[in-house]
């Protein structure tokens, strides 16, 4: 089941857990043996601590949910001092999801994470607003993404996975820009920007009005984008967005993903990640695939 994503990031199987939905892994150890996963991606971490957005931060939607957590975290230094020692010996790959609101923060954060022996990769979250550029997200323009990826690339020497925002006109173009700027892989999708309103109270349901949509409802969009990106780039693609079972995971791999991540589905079934890993295996056996890598891009069309 092994998947080699390049530059030292080798997964035991294609299943990882998505940032912001699996805490630091510790929250799920009663439910999942982490050794059965290809990797876990910890909470979005920023150079400086962030309190995140006010409550309420979530709203349920048809087959999905919106969240506006707003990257609450205690900062990279706290991660290094307090969290890393607790999780570094997990028997799986522990990836850090790095966010920032300025180029400098990304670079500084990546430099600090580069020194952590047991973190084989950063997943670079480029969906955050660039405060110096009027709040537009880094990841929605080719120039924005080129800049942040190439700057981080200079200081980060391990596997650099770039997580793409789906809120763009042309995802393939953005992915190619990330590839050209030095990404070792791309992961997609991050959340779709959405909104929910309480009609009775005539108020937004989220404290900051809009939030990120995730869960089964976004799967068709995610699958399409993974397919488009996999055709456009040569680096490995990690697919996510609404994956809830092994069949969903297989679909993403057929569309071209080399590995997948499970997000919101962890909330519905905390054991789902291990079940998906097992189910992919079962699918391969049933369909006569010797290696899980044979699934990658095996869509007939």
């Amino acid at each position, binding site marked *: 089941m092994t998947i080699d994503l390049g530059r030292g990031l080798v997964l035991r199987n294609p299943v990882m857990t998505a940032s*912001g*939905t*699996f*805490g630091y892994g510790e*929250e*799920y150890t*009663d*439910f999942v043996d982490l050794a059965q996963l290809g990797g876990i991606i910890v*909470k979005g971490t920023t150079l400086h601590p962030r*309190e*995140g957005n*006010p*409550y*309420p*931060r*979530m*709203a*349920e*939607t*048809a*087959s*999905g*949910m919106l*969240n506006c*957590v707003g990257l*609450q975290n205690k900062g990279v230094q706290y991660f290094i001092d307090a969290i890393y020692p607790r999780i570094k010996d997990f028997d799986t790959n522990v990836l850090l999801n790095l966010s920032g609101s300025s180029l400098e923060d990304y670079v500084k954060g990546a430099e600090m994470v580069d020194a952590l022996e047991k973190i084989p990769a950063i997943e670079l979250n480029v969906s955050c607003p660039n405060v110096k550029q009027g709040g537009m997200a880094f990841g929605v323009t080719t120039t924005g993404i080129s800049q942040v990826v190439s700057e981080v690339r200079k200081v980060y020497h391990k596997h650099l996975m770039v997580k793409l925002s789906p809120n763009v006109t042309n995802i393939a173009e953005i992915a190619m820009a990330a590839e050209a700027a030095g990404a070792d892989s791309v992961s997609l999708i991050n959340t779709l920007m959405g909104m929910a309103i309480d009609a009775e109270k005539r108020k937004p349901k989220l404290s900051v009005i809009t939030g990120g949509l995730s*869960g*089964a409802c976004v799967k068709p969009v995610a699958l399409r984008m993974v397919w488009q990106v996999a055709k456009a780039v040569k680096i490995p693609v990690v697919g996510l967005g609404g994956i809830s079972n092994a069949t969903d995971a297989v679909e993403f791999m057929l569309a071209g993903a080399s590995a997948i991540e499970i997000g*919101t589905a*962890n*909330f*519905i*079934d*905390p*054991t789902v990640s291990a079940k998906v890993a097992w189910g992919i295996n079962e699918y391969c056996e049933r369909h006569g695939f010797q290696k899980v890598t044979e699934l990658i891009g095996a869509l007939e069309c």
Partner: protein
Amino acid sequence: MTKQIADFKLVQKQDFGRSVLLKLRAEQALPEIAPGQFVQVRVDGSPNTYLRRPISIHDVDFQHNEITLLVQQVGEGTRHLAMAEMGNVINMVMPLGNGFSLPEKGEIVLLVGGGIGIAPLFYFAKVLVENDIRPMLLLGGKTESDLLRLADYQQLGETFVTTEDGSLGEKGFVTMHSVWQNQDFDKIYVCGPKPMMKAVAKMAAEKDVWCEVSLENLMACGLGACLCCVEDTVDGHVCVCKEGPVFNTRRLKW
């Protein structure tokens, strides 16, 4: 405390109109469960219920591996739960969060419940009684029919009642009950609608009495993983599902 995900069978059901009591039995032994902890229930067959629903543990019977929930129908999820039939399988993740702090023996303890907020107080009162602490209970509702299982609560401690329409007990809110004039308390525990909890917390603060409240913030994971359920505290945003749902009011920015 080890968390589990397990299937339970509905073995007893009691209808209280808008609310329903569900006794659920697991095949295997229950883990340790503290009063004030909650479960995350999966609601099957409810197309608009994508996430699990957090529900307090109303009662536990370790001998028969049974957990009892008291559920008020407020939306599609709770309506579907209330429609469950005997023998139906209901999946739960449990036990979640931290329960109430146990008082010392000899302390005078008041449990204040409003509406469906009385739910976790039943198991809590039972545990107190088992620990030789006889709590007093102050239960409030809009009207008589909101006071569910009153006779059962009364067995666990002296019970005072208010209703907004005066149909049972004293008329008004729990904060207006005469017991506050007649009795001092060492510890107050509150669960109910937020305005009620804030009012009781304020009274407690004025009297400088130790007070714990059980919050019901909207949740997604219930495990401290998503950071959706945060409450603003003196320590910043903390997860209600993991560090709560019970908080000492001194920690809250109310």
